[in-house]
């Protein structure tokens, strides 16, 4: 079957099998390997991307279901050579180690900051609770998101 969707602002059309998962479509058909695959069961969230501005787990979405929709991946966070504050925050606060969960964490955290520019620690923990990180113990991810929030308020004048 043929599917057409917008990925990171660009319209793409591909011939695919109906059973193809969105995560494999992004990685194998479009070469966007920043989105990772980690569990098959929607538990780990390494595959989180945006579908029409909402984070979804792309291992549990058929590529066909994304037809006609907007998909945004980690590769789209950097804008004209400028990193998104959430990317800076993860670097500043050691919000990542092996980097495998990072793409999904960044996409979820970006969505959180878009709807809540001043999240509390509990709000952040709740927002990322559908995702697993095996390296950081989460505290530094919480700080990374707080750093980004503060940066957007104080440096960018948010």
């Amino acid at each position, binding site marked *: 079957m043929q599917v057409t969707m917008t990925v990171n602002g660009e319209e793409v059309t591909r011939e695919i099998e109906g059973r193809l998962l969105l995560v494999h479509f992004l990685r194998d058909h479009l070469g966007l390997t920043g989105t990772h695959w980690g569990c098959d069961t929607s538990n780990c969230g390494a595959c989180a991307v945006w579908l029409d501005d909402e984070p979804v787990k792309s291992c549990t979405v058929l590529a066909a279901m994304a037809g006609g929709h907007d998909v945004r991946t980690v590769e789209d*966070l950097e804008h004209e050579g400028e*990193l998104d504050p959430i990317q800076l925050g993860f670097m*500043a606060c050691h919000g990542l180690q*092996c980097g495998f969960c990072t793409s999904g964490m960044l996409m979820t955290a970006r969505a959180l900051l878009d709807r809540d520019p001043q999240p509390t620690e509990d709000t952040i923990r709740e927002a990322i609770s559908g995702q*697993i990180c*095996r390296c950081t113990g989460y505290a530094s991810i919480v700080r990374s998101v707080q750093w980004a929030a503060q940066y957007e308020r*104080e440096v960018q004048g948010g």
Partner: protein
Amino acid sequence: MVESVETAVALPGGFDALGHQVLRLPELEGFEHNDQHPVGYGRMLRKEDPRFVRGLGRYCDDIQLTGMLHLAILRSPHAHARIVHIDASAAMAHPKVKAVVTGADLAAHKLAWMPTLSHDVQAVLATDKVRFQGQEVAFVVAEDHYAARDALELIDVEYERLPAVVDARRALDADAPVIRDDLTGADGCPRSDNRCFDWETGDAAATAAAFARADVVVSQDMTYPRVHPAPLETCGAVADYDRVAGKLTLWCTSQAPHAHRTMYALLTGLPEHKIRIVSPDVGGGFGNKVPIYPGYVCALVGSQITGRPVKWMEDRTENLISTAFARDYHMRGEIAATRDGKILAIRTNVLADHGAFNGVAAPSKFPAGFFGVFTGSYDLDAAHAAMTAVYTNKAPGGVAYACSFRITEAVYLVERLVDCLSAELGIDPVELRLRNFIRPDQFPYESKTGWVYDSGEYERALRLALSIAGYDELRAEQAERRARGELMGIGVSFFTEAVGAGPRKLMDIGGLGMADTCELRIHPTGKATVRVSVQTQGQGHETTFAQIIAAEIGIPPADIDVVHGDTDATPFGLGTYGSRSTPVSGAAAALVARKVRDKAQLLAAEMLEASVADLEWRTDAAGLGGFGVRGDTRNVVSIQDVARFAYGTSDLPDGMEGGLDGQLCYNPENLTYPFGAYICVVDVDPGTAVVKVRRFIAVDDCGPRINEMIVEGQVHRGLTDGVGMALMELIAFDEHGTCLGGSLMDYLIPTAKEVPSWETGFTVTPSPHHPIGAKGIGESATVGSPPAIVNAVVDALAPYGVRHADMPLTPSRVWEAMHGRGTPAA
């Protein structure tokens, strides 16, 4: 408030992120610890992060090669069964299938079995029978991943089921089915039981004598259950065999690429110089990626027979049910003491479940890993351990999950026993530990099982933890809450680790001595490349090793590139596990930098027309280094000046070669012994038996910290492991040997909701034999935290008379313990 108000794109200073962006992040109020020191010890931001935050890491599954095929593995649905017949014809007929390979096919090329890292063998593909659920039976190579999976369904395997040995405690029963009938005993006949090995350490007679004179003896049975490292990236490989050059390139998720290369050479007969192992970005290892798995061998065979690159990536279920598990020790511990709380001796009997093949990745002379340090941080009169290891119809493995070669089990044993003794004697667990610590003046301290602890100041670390926790106030609060019927628990653990294996004469992997090499090249413009034998799975080696070299040779970390993970590009070494990167390769890096600096000094003497003995090494406030003449502050040559001179056209001192580089292999004279004091506060809901970790205080001492931010991150990771193992994680099996923990819906790993905000502290006790005093931190918290959590839960349940309950302390386990059905005393 914000100190600098640059935009993200043009932040001044700092390091070069991707070769085009120079980045220095503004310091925000409340985040001051993220200051970036340009050189030396400090919380420098990580050099690897700019690619990871952009999604530009390159993991094994990201590798795409022209003409690449995909491999999928058919696995056994049974724990124990004879293979009667395999019919692969329908799979072969699938239009997208290029090859189907069974054990019989591999046997024809003597590849059906491979050596493990523990002098055992493991089936690559089963030939005679399957010995655990999930064992590899056949593989398919197809044009795409989905087709390969489809074709697995078309392979027809007829099994004759056999009774399975699931409970290790029944493995040596006379009527237990023999799992390893492929092995022969000393008499040359097929093995008649499931014994894997017997092992003991310490002095049984002296220990019995100490027990005989003790006022108090406490015994406790405890199980350290089977768990799994479950790195977020599963295991996988891309094999590319170039039949013209006769060269195999294998990208794979390996923590030990050089050791793997040697193993593949011995296994396949390919010459070692024609094998290149590349461990690209690796999404977490934790010991899961130390062994060689059948899938890697299948991938290289698949590439050889198809003449095309072949990718194999296991799925999560395959990872959980077939790759290296951890722990699975059934321990009976006994502790003997005087009435006033002087511990005299500890002894233990251990039944170790090794699964179907002995796949333990531990030094040959240490079949039980470093479990021998079970005497912990205490000065005892005697100790003894006896162990029997058995085969069962479960996945192989045993040493994994940040265990420091079984020190997790050892520390859990001794720290639970000390708490049991504390309850028996009515002495506060902190006070009991303080009375028995090895004192600072006793180091180097040889334990009763022969381990020489290098340095320690245990009381200082414990007192810091007590002060951060507010221990006395917590006890007062606990008393108040207990009076109200609330269940609050405070758990203490104190651990000493032994990390940084070798020395090489004592420790090896598969006969390869544990020593690691580092190569340093200073280029003509004064930039540097350092090549290390260890490999990073997230620990930040590209940053840490640059900082080690920077501190020694006065070149900024931004000007130092760290190369790792590629056997064609790095010198030989044993790899990253057992917290050995900093203790071993970190030492090699510091020493090779000093060696290169010594040569630079000879060159600088020529440049300054001074005698070598008159020169001194100087660094400025930013850490930049050079040589000057003693007493003369004006004449200085920087290390960059020396580099230019070394590669230039000037005459060099007589007999000296041009260039400025060096290589050094570091053979550690001893392990290093990091330690720490952990305090956990839990609340148990009396109605639901749910355990909530309210606070966790961790004070670690790993000697000097090279990058404090990275060290703290390592601690946070291990503490989260601890919460997982103590409260949630379990690889369980039903009576048929079916794995009940084969997905992340069943194998529960902590999320941000299950863990608290960690409270950390550090003391610094350098290792006397390490060139920069560093000790290793990668596994400390995984080792030290589970007993603190269990001790806290047991403490919370004291009103119910509970003395012990086995991990994981799920609500049902806690509820059973509250109602008298916990693990009884031995």
